[in-house]
């Protein structure tokens, strides 16, 4: 069985259960981000049972389900938690592809020697994810079928689809699950093609003639012809440091102190010895399950002092929405330490004596001075070597 798909439905809501497991089983409602229309973004099956639907206004939810618990989205925390999950899955197989948050694929090729059966492998995979997140897995010969199987599986279980039953399994599934343009799906449904079995029963040429390339692709998926491969995550070399503040603080100075500490700690690590970085990402977890993040790309690879200086400058007008609890610094793009030729201060015309002396010494040693300056000769010339020349430097 080559590919496993793992999904965590209602991922953003499940994340909140990591901190508050007592909320498990209650009707949870994910609200829209602050400063936007207050509607339901997602809800758990317990809330769906009480009539809550995504897109509904929050005041409607309060009337319909007074016991509903509202959770604010926290994309930084979600991304960090998903990354942690992916890293733990990478201990199982190096070939892990990240899908949207809460979904990933694992290439099971070559893992037969570790597990007696694919199901045993999937059980091991699921154990790497906290049970409170209610993960589920699907195993199939292709990525698309594996994802469909995971969506059909129950929480904490695996659904295995053998190669000879792929078409049969897909036949009853809705066309809305196809990974194609939603407009094409709407057109299919209008023409009465509601299940994948309906599509598979048509000739491929008819699907292509009616829906173009997308139609052909849909027909192939519905017939179990899935050649999508698992693309392993490419992780650029990076260093991550995190600090929990002794007490939540809104002070910018406190935040900068924490960041300075993190930068120094990161540059004290062997991976960063004699190296600079091109990019820094700052994640700040704020009280009440909120977060703030900033990405800084440096014009030139920067060392510890320069990074602190840049961050200080860029955060001088920072106003956090609440008290910061934890700071995470992610340094990306590690390169060898570079030096830059600075302008020599003694090149100023008023202080020519030291340079004259240096030139004299060089001439005595090498016969002529190796110091030159670039001069324009005929910058307009069509002959490249006529445009610029080097001339002996004589201050």
């Amino acid at each position: 069985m080559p590919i496993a798909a793992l999904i965590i439905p209602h991922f953003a809501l499940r994340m909140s259960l990591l901190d508050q497991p007592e909320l498990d089983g209650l009707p949870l409602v994910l609200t829209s981000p602050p400063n936007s229309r207050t509607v339901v973004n997602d809800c758990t099956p317990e809330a769906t049972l009480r009539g809550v639907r995504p897109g509904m206004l929050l005041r409607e939810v309060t009337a319909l389900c007074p016991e509903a618990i509202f959770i604010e989205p926290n994309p930084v925390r979600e991304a960090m938690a998903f990354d942690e999950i992916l890293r733990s899955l990478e201990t199982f197989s190096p070939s892990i592809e990240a899908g949207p948050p809460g979904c990933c694929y694992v290439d099971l090729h070559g893992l037969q020697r570790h597990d007696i059966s694919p199901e045993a492998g999937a059980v091991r995979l699921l154990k790497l994810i906290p049970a409170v997140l209610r993960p589920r897995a699907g195993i199939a010969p292709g990525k698309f079928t594996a994802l469909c199987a995971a969506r059909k599986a129950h929480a904490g279980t695996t659904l295995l689809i053998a190669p000879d039953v792929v078409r049969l399994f897909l036949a009853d599934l809705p066309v809305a699950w196809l990974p194609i343009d939603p407009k094409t799906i709407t057109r299919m449904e209008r023409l009465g093609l509601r299940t994948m079995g309906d599509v598979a029963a048509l000739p491929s040429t008819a699907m292509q003639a009616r829906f173009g390339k997308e139609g052909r692709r849909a027909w192939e998926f519905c017939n179990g012809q899935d050649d999508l491969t698992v693309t392993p995550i490419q992780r650029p070399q990076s260093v991550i440091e995190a600090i929990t503040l002794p007490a939540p603080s809104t002070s910018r100075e406190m935040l900068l102190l924490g960041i300075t500490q993190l930068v120094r700690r990161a540059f004290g690590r062997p991976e960063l010895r004699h190296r600079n970085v091109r990019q820094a990402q700052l994640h700040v977890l704020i009280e009440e399950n909120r977060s703030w993040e900033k990405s800084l790309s440096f014009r030139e690879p920067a060392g510890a002092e320069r990074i602190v200086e840049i961050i200080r400058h860029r955060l001088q007008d920072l106003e956090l929405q609440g008290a910061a609890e934890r700071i995470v610094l992610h340094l990306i793009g590690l390169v060898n330490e570079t030096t830059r030729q600075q302008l020599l201060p003694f090149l100023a015309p008023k202080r020519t004596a030291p340079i004259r002396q240096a030139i004299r010494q060089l001439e005595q040693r090498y016969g002529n001075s190796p110091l030159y300056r670039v001069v324009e000769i005929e910058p307009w010339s069509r002959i490249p070597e006529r445009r610029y020349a080097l001339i002996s430097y004589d201050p």
Partner: protein
Amino acid sequence: MVEDSGTALRPHQLRPLNLPRAVSVETARGRPAAVPIPMALIDKHGERIAIAAIEEEWSIDDEWWRDRVQRHYFRVRLEHGPLRTIFLDDESGRWFEQSY
């Protein structure tokens, strides 16, 4: 570039920049087909890289009143991606490399 210090130009001390470097170019029907690997890659010295495409070509004919300069330049894309500029000197019939 350093600011002009006001020193008078002394032509005997001038060293032209970007002089052409002679290269042996493999040709097919009079067109460049392969160029040698740059000198910097000592371990691969002597090997050649095929030219994937000629991106641009142009000619110059100048200074006819003294030593005539007649060149046909080619900006070529090599098989592994980079661009190089080479020219055929019409006077000597030899190939050179020079950034333009």
